[in-house]
């Protein structure tokens, strides 16, 4: 049985068409798979490699270099990145990350048992003017406080948090 569905497979050729080599499609294709499955399991790596005419080790080599992709199990419904780089750290980013660890009872890189939240530290989210900054999936939140984090997590747990679409 294939891990990659028909739509993802079709998408691969569209993506590969933007580049003169099929290998160049590896990163965008990994993103496409990750968007679909929430992670990139080894089986997907093998299937991708075949579709891109590469050895599985080639795809694995690239994948493992980048911090974004998970392989062992799907990330939580919401991936919460807390910036710990200097501008945010100078305005309480590290304390915020520690607070979230205690609140969610997980460490960075882990997912809550209900599968809702994966907590991550981030190196410079590039939102330094709004430090401390937190990225939740595709939505950036600036000037975060414990109160704002509490409200955010409440909405995430209640399933009433929605990603920005524009």
């Amino acid at each position, binding site marked *: 049985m294939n891990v990659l569905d028909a739509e993802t497979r079709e998408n691969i050729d569209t993506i590969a068409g*933007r*580049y*003169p*080599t099929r*290998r*160049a*499609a*590896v*990163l*965008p294709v*990994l*993103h496409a798979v990750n968007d679909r499955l929430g992670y990139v399991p080894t089986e997907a790596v093998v299937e991708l490699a075949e579709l891109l005419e590469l050895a599985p080790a080639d795809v694995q*080599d*690239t994948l493992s*270099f*980048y*911090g*974004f*992709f998970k392989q062992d199990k799907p990330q939580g419904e919401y991936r919460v*990145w807390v910036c*710990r*780089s*200097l*501008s945010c*750290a*100078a*305005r309480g980013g590290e304390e915020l990350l520690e607070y979230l660890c205690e609140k969610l009872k997980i460490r960075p890189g882990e997912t809550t048992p209900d599968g809702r939240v994966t907590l991550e530290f*981030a*190196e*410079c*989210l*590039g*939102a*330094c*003017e*709004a*430090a401390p900054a937190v*990225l939740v*999936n*595709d*939505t*950036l939140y600036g000037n975060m406080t414990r109160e704002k984090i509490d409200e955010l997590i409440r909405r995430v747990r209640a399933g009433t948090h929605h990603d*920005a679409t*524009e």
Partner: protein
Amino acid sequence: MTYDPVLLANIDKKDSHTLPVYQSGGGYRGLRRALEDMSPADVVELVKQSGLRGRGGAGFPTGAKWSFLPKNHPGPVYFCVNADESEPGTFVNRVQMELDPHQVLEGTIISCYATGASTAYIYLRHEYPLARRRMQAAVGECYAAGLLGENILGGGFSLDVHIHVGAGAYVCGEETGLIESIEGRRAWPRIKPPYPAVEGLFRKPTVVNNVETLACVKQIVDRGADWFRSMGTPPDPNDPRDPGSFGPKLFGLSGHVNRPGCYEAPLGITVRRLIDEYGGGVWKGRRAKAAIVGGLSTGLVTEAEFDTPLDFSAPIRAGCLGLGTGGVIVLDETYSMIDFLHNSCRFFAHESCGQCTPCREGTQWALEMLERIRAGRGRLRDLDLLREIGETIGIMPGTTICGLADGAAWPIKTALGKFREEFEGYVKEPTTV
């Protein structure tokens, strides 16, 4: 503050990111004029005349970079937009792409015309989802309006633009790391030469330019080289290699100031004026202790050095790596330099790509020493060992392939060089653990 922003002139308009609003302010007229009235060589010459230097960190003259492309190459020539803004304290490209993506695109199209590139890849970090959506939408608007694709504006020039999203690696901002990443590999920087202009993406001649640099190109085509040279710092007569620092610059101001933000000023504004006049001064009524001058990797200046002009040369005279990206991070008098250096060393140890031993090992050992010092178990000789690491890792001492380790070294060298007493005091008597 009598300066009227040019690069940021559009961003307060409603729907500033859309094509109609951009065009209502004169957008894409410069592209039309370039295509109708100028040869590609004319554009290269204009950019050379302007004295534009790359805004991404290295400050290399843009026109010179373009002219390194081989003449009469059969092609294709590739163009990469470096939108992998990842230097701590740097966010101005994000603001540009979110609020004025068409200015970036117009600069890209003009630059591709100048360099003969037929395909451009915008390498955009995944941490910028709004910038990605806005740039993608802007590209779509351009194709629909005949500003991208075949025969742009009927002028015979054709160009395709694709957005390539990163996956969380600082080293992708290094231009050959970026190229490797687009090619689908781990972003290990290449040994140079050959430089990308000769052998770059897919082994073809390639130009890599930063987002802000491209916005400057657009403004130079609109307003001329003399306008660009009317602001900034002229060449240092005592330094024959200094081409001067011309034009407007975006400064990302963050840390302990009252009004952090993205500000535009002529190159050469001092750190102090930026903090006081734009940033509303140091927060909580405190005094500043130090500031990062241009992104973490440039190192810091002390409060006593705040009259340093932010141009390409003066930060070097103040002991820093350079102007970098123009990301100024202010630290107030209560902030611990040990915490600062720990934060910096942790960042570079995390981001070292692992290809060169001095960087991979040096950044990790520096972090371990800082962890030890911070935990109250430091020794005075650790400080000398840290200095030694700072002086020996990097492309400038000649031990690594790219400049990442130099970026790790400058915070070490400037912090220990300028705040030695604080480090010694803490090692002898750790105050808080």
